[in-house]
Each structure stands twice: as structure tokens, then as C-alpha cells.
């Protein structure tokens, strides 16, 4: 619209608002530089209309000479060329001059301005002292100003300012300058506000008319852009950008409305077919070509968008927001593609791709041009989108032009390429010299297959690197995958492989099953081309089991495996091929679901039949015939120390528990966690991925440690078996790569043969020719059990031709144990306690172990007298198998000879149990069970090598050892049986004066009730003249458990009995049940010594004189008389304690009165030694005083009589007294005489008393501390007549206090 010469003004971005200058040009020229310099120095606040925020603005101006041409004509909307202020300069100070010329000039100037409707003017009067001095007829300065004000500024006095001495460096001049500048700025801003406001109003009005038919977007565009230009000129880039954004939004809205069916007429011009697709141009501030097209309403949509974006880009870069440019660029490109689609603009195929590609690169170049490298690298995330987009588009172009194929483009492709290149037009002049312009790149890329590859790779790698750098791994993998697809199409699987594997790994790790399936198919194709047979087959297996694929596809992949298997086996059969076995992971082929033992216990003996049932879930879509299915078994010998010979030791059970930590159920089944196969379901692999992220479940087991000796529990606890898995470092990098991740086997493809290592194992469970149907299959195995030890199932392998599927680890561990056992014989009582003296049943148990009991094998029991084996006719043996089934029963034949009892055993298989019962009888040992309190007797030591007695809970017991020769061993087996003696006997001698009684107390200590018959007491020395009168009943007596029976005999004798008497008590007993039980004898031997009574002790208590009764507190007389009842016997005659004096033999006795119950107070001497003549009826009386302490019937104080053995001088005493020596000699002589009639027992008795054999008077001065000794009489030698007597004691008369004892 505007004239041609205005163009250069627009071109420079150094546009400034135009200010015209009229008046004196010379004057202005002098001031110009100062003015132009000073004007922008200080900012000015610009208050805006419509509530827009005020801005501080530095004003600049372009001062031009006033011309009428400059003033805008009617209807001209151009703002850039609009003069915002008109200044008239004058330095006139002379009224005459003023009137003559200046006023006229001003008037003309004013008229012109008014004519054009411009109100923005200013008159500057420059005053200078130099001029004033020269003029004498000076008018006051003010008068000129006043005149001008009067003439021109009728109401606007501020439109005339004076500038004083502007070229001088004075304070006045400074001040004047400052006020002038402020005025100038204010007026300029006023002008802006006014004119821009008016412009905006016009613009708005224009916009409101957009619904009118003739409205043109392009016209409006030019108007609003004018405003944007002005804002840009005022360096208000933000405001300028807003103008473009508004235009952008307006246009977008129209396009959208068009899509919605509301088509505006003017849009028609934008719907013209796209003929040029040369991309964005961002190097010029304003793309005039495009602008002109818009001005002429000839622009296409791409032209408009390109121009708009180039302007936005320029402003954004001014605003230092380059990253917004990239973001907007991507939006723009996406948007343009959509808009063209929406407007149904016809575009040559590929043209848009070219446009997008060029534009992406152009934007990237522009950004690179305004940022340094570090900045660019830090903001990859903003640019990477454009890089990827460019890559994608280039790939599309490559596809379109036949550049991505093995054969290169055909003629059709070439034609298309030529058409596309034509649309690019010629290269723009500004990039013609650059080597790397987008234009050149595209042209080069489309020119040949090689250059295309070069550019495509360059872009792809750049995008991948950027994605990797900013951590967008998934995006990087996606680019990588599309690169892999490119390589595959180029027939370069080698290069594709790595990218595909990387992608596959990440999809598997994150559990995106569709991607896994898709990528895996590509991998399969790639591996097939590469000839990686093993990897290919593994991938095929995974794909064949992939539920995301159709049945046909799965069958195809399954067939691939089968084909390979058959093909290899054929070649092998021809003898041509070497070992071509391929080992693949079983995970994709089939899953082990369950292992079941039959019998249920995973512990069997050597040679036992153990069935193992395998439940295998086949994932293949078709039935697969396996030539062989094998489980390799690791065999470890059982540790010799671990296994006891006994099956029932606790150590056995604990390893059995640990053997199958997978938890062998009571039914013998081990369940394996169901792992969903890779891509087994739409979300199956997802769970696998979750498994990789989340730790595996805890596997906890109870553990018990029992004491080996008595099976008591020492410790118990819970053990986690998979700690090594749980505590593994959770490394994101490794977790993606670990082969076990999710168990999905994704890594197996990459791991290949390394992951599937075959174990060499001597032991194998095998079955041949199994057909695995899809789904669950059950396959039985027979487990080997020839050698004892632990068998651990390690690997499972399935053979299909030359292909072998291997499950490298069976987890949880499955073990079974085979044990070997020595034959073993045990004899156990049937009851809790075996009782001696009665026939008792014992159970013989033979655990055959590995030994086979043959016909004719017999147990040889060596007989002992103390325990005969009793024969019974009905003795049968039971044979029980190891699982507890009764196999058979057969009668036993027992043959006894003098020395051995032979029991022939029925034939029995190994690992069976043979048991039978026998009656045995253990004789009660004749000797009395020794009690600790009982004295050791001479000649009574019984020598019983095979039995010994001990005490157990009150019962005396006998350990009876049995020696058995077993057929399986050359050694005899010694088995100990413990019998308990059912009775305990005690005897006592009772006296009544001279009469003697023997009492035997028989106590039943067992739990059984007995009948007792015929108790008899006999003397063992038959020469004696003793007579024993039984005072016992004749009939049977019952002795209940824990109760006693007493038997009594009176002993009479004619002549003095020997000092030592030996008796034997025999009674017959039988258990009360059964009633017909045989009576067995019970013997009890004992001996008594010195049974006859020597002394009689008699005590009397007499009340005090004159008192009829004893009273408490008063002394009473205690009269003790000791009477010798018998003549000295032979045995007594030589008793060491008697002494001879004056022909009378005396013996010294000590009496002692003790009152333990504190009833009596013995006054004076309570003990004393008396000499008793050793003759019958010799009596000694002792009188003592005692005082009763209580009233009532008080028992007599007890009186003890003891032998008093005075001390004789030991030989070590120096012989200073002759008498001593003499006495010694004498006594020795005496002794020699008496010795002759001594009995052996008495002599030994004497030896007990050792040195005390000679009596000696007490030495006058007892040197060497000679101490007399006391010795008690044996029971029955002293008879106390007053034993148990009581005397009545009356309370003291003056006793006021009644003492009551309540207890």
C-alpha cells in the first residue's frame, strides 16, 4: 500500500518513532546530536489504556526534516511511517524578525498539521546569551514566548518550551535541557498513547467486521502486524508477540470452524494446493516474500504459518526464550499437518514430510545459532523432539522414495523424488553458501541410497544420544528399534540385532507383553537371517508359547523348532553331521508344576521302589513328541556320622524335613510356583515384570534341633531359605539383565547357550517317547535307589530330536533320601517294668535292614541260670513291611539245649520288621537287696557277673544281660534287661525280758497286688538248738501294692545261742491276677547277733520325801537299777571290756539320762560310769534327782546304757612308767589264753576295735589325750523295763499361772 521508498525503513530493525523538525534547520542541526543522545537516557513511565500494566520505556526517536509528504493521508493505517511528533525550532528573539518571517512559517506549519489532523506538535524556542548581547533593543525574553503562546497555543501553553543556552555548560542550560527532554518524552508518549489507541480502536472495529462477507484475513493481518511492528520498534517485544499470537489464534479458530462446517470465504485462498514446501525461514527478521504473498492474499496455509512462526521466532529470540521456539515449532509442525488435513488441502505425497523435515532442521539451526554448545546440551530435552520428528520424516521420505530397500529406488520412486525436489524450489540466497543447510541435506539425502543412509543414521544416532543423555531410555529404545527396522529392510540383520535386543530387554523388564511379542518376532527374523540357530530356536520357543500370537503363528514357530529337530536328526542318521545338539531353556517350552513322590515319604531304603510323578505343563500349541524326558540327579553319599543305625533316632527325621524344603506335603507332592510364561497372557508378562521389581516371597521353614540322646527339643526356629535372593542388591541396571528376572526367560535369548548349561550326571531319571500335549501332562518315573545317600533332582531335560529343552535348576530343591540300615535286634519289655521272680513277656523286634532272613536262620540265646527262657507253644512272629503293612505271621520254633536257646526265624525280606514275644523269668537274687544302712556282712558277697542291683524309685532292680548270636553278625549282641524286685524285706528283733521275737516286714514295692503264702523262717546253721515258733496265719494273705505284711516268730533256745544267728525267710507269692498264677518263692536272708538279753534296766521315780505325788518344780528321786540277767557266756568271757579285779570280773557301763522332750530337768550328774560284776543278778543302783517341769503324766526320761571302753595307752607313748609296760604284758598274756575259744566272727569284730583289745586303767595323767570310748549294745542286749512308763506329776501348789499351750 505504501510507497516504495518506505521499504528500507521497515527492513532495518533499528526503527525509531519518527519526529519531524521544522523551523530553523541550522539550529536543529547544531542540537541534533545532543538531543539524540540525551533522549533515551532516562526511562519514562508509559501508562496504557485498557487497564494494561504501565511500563517503563526508553524513548528514542528518528528526527527527520518536516515534509508534508510525511503526514499520513486519509485511510493510511501505516504506523511505522507515522510521525508521532512535530517540532518547530526557532531561536528568534527579535519581535520584528518574529513578526516578519517566523510567525508566518509557524502559521504555515500549523495549518499543514491541522489539515492532517495532527495535534502532536511542539515549538521550541532556543535562547542564547550570545544573541542577546548583540541586540540592544532587547525585548524581554518572555515577550517572544508570550507572543508565540498567544499566537499558537491558545489553550496549550505547554506546547511551547524554551531551551536556554543549550550549547553551554552551565547549570541553567542543564536545567533547561532536562525540563525540555521531560517535556519531549511526555509529549511523545502522549502521542503514542493517543495514536496507538486510535489505531487499536480502528483495528478492533475491523476485526469485529470479520463476519461480514468481504472481510479479508490478510488485510486484517497487515493491520495488526503494523501494531506489532510498532511495539517491536518500541522494544516492547512481549506486546509485539501478543499481536502475532492473537493473529495465530484467530487463524486457528477459523480453521477449526472450517472443520466444524463453518467455512469463511477468505479461507479459500489458503485451501489452494500446496505447491512449495521449502520449509520455514528463520534467518531473516522479516520474510518479505511471504509477507507480500499475504498482502496480496495469495499466501498458502504453509506460507502464512511459516511467516507467522518466523515472526514469533524472531520475537522469542529477542525475549531470550529460545526453548519456547522449539516447543512452539513442534506444535506448529504437528498443527500444520493437522490443519492441512482438516482443510482437505491437496498435497503431494511426501511434500509435507519434506516441509516438516526442513522446518525441523531450520529451527534447530536457528537455535544453534543463538545458543552456545553448553546451553544446547543442557536443553536437549527441548530440542530432541525436533530431532526425532525430523528423523521420522526422513524415514518416511526414504520409504516413499524407495531408498530403504536392498534394490534401491525404481523408476516410479525416482519420479516421485523428482517431484518432491521440484517443490523445494531453489535454495534461498542466505543459505546458499552454507555447507550444512537443511535444504542441502534433504536434497542430498534424497539423491541416493548411500547418502540417505548416512543422513538417516546421523539423525537417528543424534536423537538416541540425546534421549540417552536426558535419561529418556524408553524413547531412545524406540528410536533404536526403528533404526533396527531400517537395518532389517536394508538386509543388515547384524546391525539390527543389538538394537532389537536392547529394546526387547527393556520391554521384558518392564513387562509390556505386546511390545515383547512384537519385538521378539523381529528378533526371531533377525536371528534367522543371522543363522543363530540356537538363539533363533529359543526365540521360536518363546513365541510358540506366546498367547499374544494367533494359533497359526504359534504353530508356525513351534514347527520351526520341530523342523530343526527332525532335520538335524536326519543328517545325523546319515552320519554326516557332528553333534548338533541344541540346548534351550525349558521355561518357554513347558513348566514344571508339581513333583509327586509315591510313596509319599521322600525317604526310602536301599532298593525300595520310589515312583516320581512329574506334572509338566506344555506351553506349545501342538502336541510334541519327546524322545526322552530326563531328570538328572545329583547323588551325594550319606555322611557316615549323620545316620545312626537306628531308624528312630531324631537325627533321621530332621534331615528328612530339610530334604525337601519346597515343602513335601504329606501326600508327597512338591508344588512349583506357577510362573507365567513370557507373554503368556495379555498381562502375564506384566506380572513377571512385577516379580522382577518386587522381591520374591519369603520361603520360611520351621527348624527343630533335638538332642540326640533323648530326643528332647533343644532349639526351634524359623529359617528363611531364599535369603540370598531377598538380600540381593537391588540394582536397577542389573535387575534388567538378570536372567531370572521375572522368570520370563527373556534374557535367555541373549544368554543363549551360556544360560543353559547341561550338567553331567551319572544318575538320571528317564522315560522315552513321551508325547506332551498342550497343557498339563503327567509323567511317571522310577527313582533309582540302589545306593544309600541323598538324591537331589537338578535338571530337567526334554529331548526333541536334536533339540533339548533344559530346566537348569529345579527350584525349590527336591531331594529324596535312600538309606541303608544294618539289621538290628531289640528286646523291649511289654510292660513298664519287668518284675523279677515272675514270668514276664518281652518283645523281640528284628529290623532286618539290608539283611534277608533266610530259612534256617536262628537267634541263639545263651542261657543263664538267673534268667531262663520259658517256652510257650503259641509263639508267633509277625512280619511287617517298612511301610507298616502286615506281611505275614508264622509260628516260631524254639529249641533249648543246656547252654543255648535257639529261636528259628521265619524267612523275612530286607527292610521288614519281625517281632515276637517270649516269656522270661528272672530269679530274684537270693541275697537281700543291699540297703545303704545295712552293715556289710562277711561271707555274703555274691558274685554275679551278669547282674547287678541298683535302686530306682524305691525298687531294687536287677540288670540282666542277655547274649544273643544273630545270624547276620559274627559278634554276639548283648542286650540288657532291667528287672525290678517286687518286695523289700526288713527284719527286727523284739524282746520281752528274756524272750525274743523275730519280726519280718515284707513290703510290696511294685504296682502289682500279690497273694502271699507259707511264710517260713529257718535258721541256716542247722547245728543250733534254736526253736522258731511261727505266730503267723496259715492261709493266703493279700499284699496290695505299696503295702506291707508282717510275720512274727518267737525264738526259743535251750542252750545259749551263738552270738551270730543266720536266718532265711521264704515266702511264696503270686500275683492276684490271674488267679491260677503259679506261686514263686521269695527269699530273704538275714542275720542277728547277740540276741540274748544281758542287762535289765529299771527306773523308778519317787516323789520328794513326805510327798505322796511328784510335783512340778520339786525334786524327785530317780532310781535306776541295772541288773545283769545272765551268766557270762563264752563269747562274753573274753570280751575286752571286762576287767578283773580282786577275782571279780567287772565291766564298765555308762548310763545316761536324757530327756529330749524337756519334761524333766536332770539335776546333778546325768551320766555316770558304773562297774558291773559279770555275774547273773548283779545289780547296780544309781540315784539321781530330777525335777519335773510340767504337770501331768510325764513319760520317764530315757535312760541309755552304753559300753564304756576306757582308753588304753597307745604304743607311741614314751615308756616313762613301768606299770604301764607291765600292764601291757599282763593283758597280752591274758588275751593269749582266752583267744582259743574265739570264733572267727568275734575275732574279726575285735579287729574292728583294733587297738582296744587290752584293758588298761586310765593313766594317772592322761598324756597324749587318751579318750575313753563308748559303744552301744546291739538291740536286744539291754531290756528296759520302764520303757514307756509314765509318772503322774501334780502342779506346784502355789502355781497361779495356768499355762495353756495351744498349738
Amino acid at each position: 500500500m505504501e510507497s516504495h521508498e518506505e521499504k528500507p525503513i521497515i527492513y532495518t530493525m533499528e526503527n525509531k518513532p519518527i519526529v519531524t523538525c521544522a523551523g530553523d534547520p541550522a539550529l536543529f542541526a547544531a542540537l541534533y546530536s545532543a538531543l539524540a543522545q540525551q533522549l533515551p537516557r532516562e526511562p519514562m513511565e508509559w501508562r496504557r489504556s485498557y487497564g494494561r500494566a504501565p511500563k517503563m520505556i526508553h524513548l528514542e526517536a528518528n528526527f527527520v526534516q518536516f515534509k508534508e509528504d510525511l503526514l499520513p493521508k486519509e485511510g493510511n493505517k501505516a504506523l511505522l511511517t507515522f510521525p508521532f511528533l512535530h517540532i518547530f525550532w526557532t531561536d528568534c528573539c527579535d519581535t520584528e524578525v518574529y513578526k516578519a518571517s517566523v510567525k508566518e512559517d509557524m502559521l504555515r506549519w500549523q495549518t499543514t498539521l491541522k489539515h492532517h489532523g495532527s495535534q502532536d506538535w511542539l515549538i521550541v524556542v532556543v535562547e542564547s546569551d550570545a544573541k542577546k548581547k548583540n541586540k540592544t533593543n532587547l525585548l524581554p525574553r518572555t515577550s517572544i514566548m508570550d507572543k508565540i503562546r498567544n499566537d499558537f497555543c491558545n489553550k496549550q501553553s505547554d506546547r511551547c518550551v524554551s531551551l536556554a543556552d543549550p550549547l553551554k555548560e552551565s547549570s541553567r542550560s542543564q536545567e533547561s535541557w532536562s525540563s525540555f527532554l521531560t517535556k519531549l518524552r511526555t509529549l511523545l508518549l502522549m502521542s503514542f498513547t493517543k495514536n496507538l489507541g486510535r489505531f487499536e480502536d480502528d483495528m478492533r472495529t475491523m476485526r469485529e467486521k470479520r463476519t461480514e462477507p468481504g472481510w479479508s484475513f490478510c488485510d486484517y493481518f497487515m493491520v495488526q502486524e503494523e501494531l506489532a511492528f510498532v511495539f517491536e520498534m518500541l522494544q516492547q517485544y512481549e506486546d509485539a508477540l501478543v499481536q502475532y499470537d492473537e493473529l495465530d489464534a484467530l487463524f486457528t479458530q477459523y480453521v477449526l470452524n472450517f472443520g466444524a462446517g463453518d467455512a469463511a470465504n477468505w479461507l479459500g485462498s489458503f485451501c489452494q494446493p500446496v505447491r512449495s514446501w521449502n520449509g520455514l525461514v528463520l534467518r531473516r527478521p522479516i520474510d518479505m516474500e511471504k509477507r507480500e504473498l499475504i498482502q496480496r492474499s495469495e499466501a498458502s496455509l504453509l506460507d502464512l504459518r511459516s511467516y507467522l512462526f518466523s515472526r514469533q521466532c524472531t520475537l522469542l529470540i529477542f525475549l531470550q526464550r529460545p526453548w519456547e521456539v522449539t516447543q512452539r515449532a513442534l506444535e506448529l509442525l504437528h498443527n500444520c499437518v493437522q490443519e492441512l488435513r482438516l482443510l482437505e488441502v491437496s498435497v503431494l505425497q511426501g511434500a509435507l514430510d519434506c516441509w516438516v523435515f526442513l522446518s525441523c532442521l531450520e529451527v534447530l539451526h536457528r537455535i544453534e545459532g543463538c545458543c552456545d554448545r553448553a546451553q544446547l546440551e543442557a536443553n536437549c530435552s527441548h530440542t530432541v523432539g525436533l530431532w526425532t520428528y525430523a528423523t521420522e520424516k526422513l524415514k518416511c521420505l526414504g520409504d516413499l522414495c524407495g531408498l530403504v530397500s536392498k534394490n534401491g529406488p525404481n523408476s516410479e520412486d525416482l519420479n516421485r523424488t523428482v517431484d518432491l525436489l521440484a517443490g523445494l524450489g531453489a535454495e534461498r540466497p542466505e543459505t546458499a553458501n552454507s555447507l550444512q543447510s537443511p535444504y542441502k541435506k534433504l536434497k542430498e539425502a534424497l539423491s541416493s541410497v548411500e547418502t540417505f543412509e548416512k543422513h538417516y543414521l546421523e539423525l537417528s544416532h543424534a536423537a538416541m544420544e540425546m534421549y540417552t543423555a536426558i535419561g529418556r531410555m524408553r524413547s531412545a529404545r524406540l528410536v533404536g528399534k526403528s533404526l533396527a527396522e531400517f537395518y532389517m529392510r536394508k538386509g543388515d540383520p547384524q546391525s539390527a540385532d543389538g538394537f532389537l535386543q536392547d529394546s526387547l530387554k527393556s520391554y521384558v523388564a518392564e513387562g509390556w507383553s505386546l511390545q515383547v511379542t512384537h519385538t521378539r518376532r523381529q528378533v526371531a527374523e533377525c536371528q534367522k537371517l543371522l543363522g543363530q540357530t540356537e538363539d533363533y530356536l529359543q526365540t521360536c520357543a518363546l513365541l510358540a508359547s506366546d498367547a499374544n500370537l494367533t494359533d497359526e503363528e504359534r504353530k508356525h514357530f513351534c514347527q520351526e523348532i520341530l523342523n530343526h529337530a527332525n532335520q538335524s536328526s536326519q543328517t545325523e542318521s546319515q552320519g554326516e553331521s557332528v553333534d548338533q545338539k541344541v540346548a534351550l531353556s525349558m521355561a518357554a517350552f513347558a513348566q514344571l508344576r508339581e513333583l509327586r513322590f509315591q510313596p509319599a515319604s521322600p525317604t526310602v531304603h536301599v532298593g525300595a521302589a520310589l515312583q516320581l510323578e512329574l506334572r509338566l505343563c506344555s506351553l506349545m500349541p501342538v502336541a510334541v513328541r519327546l524322545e526322552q524326558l530326563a531328570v538328572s540327579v545329583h547323588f551325594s553319599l550319606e555322611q557316615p556320622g549323620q545316620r545312626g543305625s537306628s531308624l528312630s533316632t531324631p537325627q533321621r527325621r530332621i534331615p528328612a524335613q530339610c530334604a525337601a524344603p519346597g515343602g513335601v506335603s504329606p501326600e508327597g507332592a512338591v508344588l512349583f510356583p506357577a510362573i507365567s510364561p513370557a507373554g503368556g497372557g495379555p498381562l502375564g508378562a506384566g506380572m513377571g515384570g512385577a516379580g522382577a521389581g518386587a522381591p520374591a516371597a519369603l520361603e520360611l521353614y520351621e527348624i527343630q534341633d533335638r538332642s540326640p540322646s533323648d530326643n528332647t527339643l533343644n532349639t526351634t526356629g524359623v529359617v528363611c531359605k531364599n535369603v540370598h535372593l531377598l538380600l540381593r542388591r537391588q540394582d536397577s541396571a542389573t535387575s534388567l539383565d538378570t536372567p531370572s528376572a521375572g522368570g520370563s526367560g527373556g534374557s535367555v535369548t541373549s544368554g543363549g547357550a551360556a544360560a543353559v548349561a547341561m550338567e553331567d550326571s551319572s544318575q538320571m531319571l528317564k522315560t522315552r517317547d513321551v508325547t506332551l500335549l498342550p497343557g498339563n501332562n503327567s509323567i511317571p518315573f522310577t527313582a533309582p535307589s540302589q545306593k544309600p545317600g541323598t538324591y537331589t533332582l537338578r535338571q530337567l531335560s526334554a529331548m526333541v530330536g536334536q533339540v533339548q529343552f533344559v530346566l537348569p535348576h529345579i527350584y525349590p530343591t527336591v531331594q529324596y533320601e535312600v538309606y541303608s540300615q544294618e539289621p538290628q535286634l531289640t528286646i523291649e519289655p511289654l510292660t513298664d517294668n519287668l518284675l523279677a521272680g515272675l514270668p514276664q513277656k518281652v518283645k523281640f523286634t528284628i529290623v532286618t535292614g539290608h539283611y534277608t532272613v533266610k530259612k534256617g536262620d536262628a537267634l541263639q540265646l545263651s542261657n543263664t541260670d538267673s534268667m531262663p527262657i520259658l517256652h510257650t507253644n503259641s509263639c508267633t512272629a509277625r512280619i511287617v513291611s517298612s511301610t507298616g503293612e502286615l506281611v505275614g505271621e508264622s509260628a516260631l520254633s524254639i529249641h533249648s539245649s543246656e547252654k543255648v536257646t535257639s529261636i528259628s526265624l521265619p524267612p523275612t525280606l530286607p527292610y521288614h520288621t519281625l517281632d515276637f514275644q517270649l516269656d522270661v523269668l528272672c530269679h530274684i537274687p537270693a541275697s537281700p537287696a543291699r540297703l545303704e544302712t545295712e552293715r556289710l556282712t562277711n561271707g555274703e558277697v555274691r558274685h554275679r557277673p551278669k547282674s547287678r542291683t541298683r535302686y530306682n524309685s524305691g525298687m531294687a532292680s536287677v540288670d540282666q544281660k542277655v547274649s544273643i548270636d544273630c545270624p547276620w553278625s559274627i559278634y554276639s549282641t548283648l542286650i540288657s534287661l532291667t528287672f525290678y524286685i517286687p518286695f523289700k524285706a526288713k527284719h527286727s528283733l523284739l524282746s520281752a525280758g528274756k524272750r525274743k521275737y523275730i519280726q519280718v516286714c515284707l513290703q510290696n514295692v511294685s504296682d502289682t497286688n500279690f497273694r502271699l503264702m507259707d511264710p517260713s523262717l529257718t535258721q541256716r546253721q542247722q547245728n543250733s538248738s534254736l526253736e522258731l515258733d511261727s505266730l503267723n496265719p496259715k492261709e493266703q494273705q493279700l499284699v496290695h501294692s505299696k503295702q506291707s505284711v508282717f510275720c512274727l516268730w518267737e525264738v526259743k533256745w535251750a542252750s545259749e545261742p551263738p552270738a551270730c544267728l543266720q536266718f532265711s525267710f521264704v515266702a511264696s507269692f503270686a500275683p492276684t491276677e490271674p488267679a491260677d498264677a503259679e506261686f514263686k518263692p521269695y527269699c530273704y536272708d538275714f542275720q542277728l547277733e547277740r540276741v540274748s538279753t544281758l542287762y535289765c534296766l529299771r527306773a523308778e521315780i519317787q516323789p520328794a520325801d513326805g510327798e505322796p505325788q511328784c510335783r512340778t518344780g520339786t525334786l524327785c528321786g530317780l532310781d535306776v537299777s541295772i541288773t545283769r540277767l545272765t551268766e557270762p557266756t563264752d563269747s562274753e568271757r573274753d570280751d575286752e571290756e571286762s576287767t578283773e579285779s580282786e577275782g571279780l570280773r567287772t565291766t564298765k557301763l555308762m548310763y545316761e539320762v536324757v530327756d529330749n522332750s524337756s519334761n524333766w530337768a536332770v539335776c546333778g550328774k546325768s551320766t555316770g560310769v558304773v562297774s558291773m560284776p559279770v555275774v547273773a543278778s548283779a545289780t547296780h543302783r544309781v540315784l539321781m534327782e530330777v525335777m519335773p517341769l510340767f504337770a501331768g503324766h510325764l513319760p520317764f526320761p530315757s535312760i541309755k546304757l552304753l559300753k564304756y571302753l576306757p582308753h588304753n595307752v597307745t604304743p607311741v607313748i614314751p615308756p616313762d612308767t613301768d606299770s604301764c609296760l607291765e600292764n601291757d604284758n599282763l593283758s597280752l598274756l591274758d588275751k593269749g589264753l582266752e583267744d582259743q575259744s574265739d570264733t572267727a566272727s568275734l575275732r574279726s569284730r575285735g579287729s574292728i576295735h583294733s587297738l582296744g583289745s587290752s584293758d588298761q586303767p586310765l593313766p594317772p595323767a592322761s598324756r597324749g589325750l587318751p579318750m575313753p570310748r563308748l559303744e552301744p549294745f546291739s538291740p536286744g542286749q539291754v531290756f528296759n523295763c520302764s520303757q514307756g512308763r509314765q509318772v503322774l506329776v501334780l502342779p506346784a501348789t502355789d502355781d497361779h499361772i495356768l499355762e495353756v499351750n495351744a498349738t
Partner: protein
Amino acid sequence: MTCLCFLCVSRDYDELSSIMAVCIAVIAKENYPLYIRSVPTQNELKFHYTVHTSLDVVEEKISSVGKALADQRELYLGLLYPTEDYKVYGYVTNSKVKFVIVVDSSNTSLRDNEIRSMFRKLHNSFTDVMCNPFYIPGDPIQSKAFDSMVSAMMVQAC
């Protein structure tokens, strides 16, 4: 914890009939899909790739915002990335479960607010799924209610 986030989500029964999503996905904290459904007429695999790749941006947004304002972080992540054909929007719950909605680029009637309300609706429905005592967290979502709610958001594109 999760309960609090339920409260924040006000029930929003805006009429969304005009809105169409072409793919809706729920992705677990560990980045495997809990639920993914796309318009049946279009290539399902493509959407899986798109959603999977968008996780890059989701993670980037979570980590950049998460540090400073973990508590009052907005759950809506906005436009994750546009492609020529689709716009991918993201949303992340406090328990780091991600929702991704893909809409057609040509569908210009969609505003940010409408996307937000779609996410809120999705979140509410997801919360209902989680409240089901028979649902094991981490398992694929198979709830019919959830499915029909997603169906309602995905108007037939053909």
C-alpha cells in the same frame, strides 16, 4: 494415606459424552501396565508403544516437581508429548500409579479442563477398584465397572 487422596478428588459428573480418548492406560508404580485399552479399530500395538514411551516424560515430570513440592504436587501432569496424530496426557496418583490418556490430535474440542475431569473420573474409578477387598494390588485390573467407565470415555472413533 491413599484415603487422603480420595478426598481430594471431588466427584465430577461432567458430561463427557463429546470427548473421545483413543487409548486409556493405568500403569503400576513399577511401570508395567495394570490396564490398557485402546480403540479397537486402531493398531493396539502402536498405542502400547506410545504409552510406554510416554512414561519417560512422566518420570521426568515426577522427578522434577517431586523434590520441591511432593506434598502439594498436582496429580495432573498435563500434556506429556504431542505427536503428529495423538496427544498424550498424564496423571500420577500419590501412590505413583500412572494414568495415561491418548486423544486424537484432530479432536480439537478437547480442553485441558475436560482432560482433567477425565483423569479425576478415572482416578475415582481406580480408587473403587482398589477398595475391592478381592482385588490384589498389583494385579491387572479386570473390574467390569472400571471397564465400562473406560468404555464411556472412549467413544467409537469410526
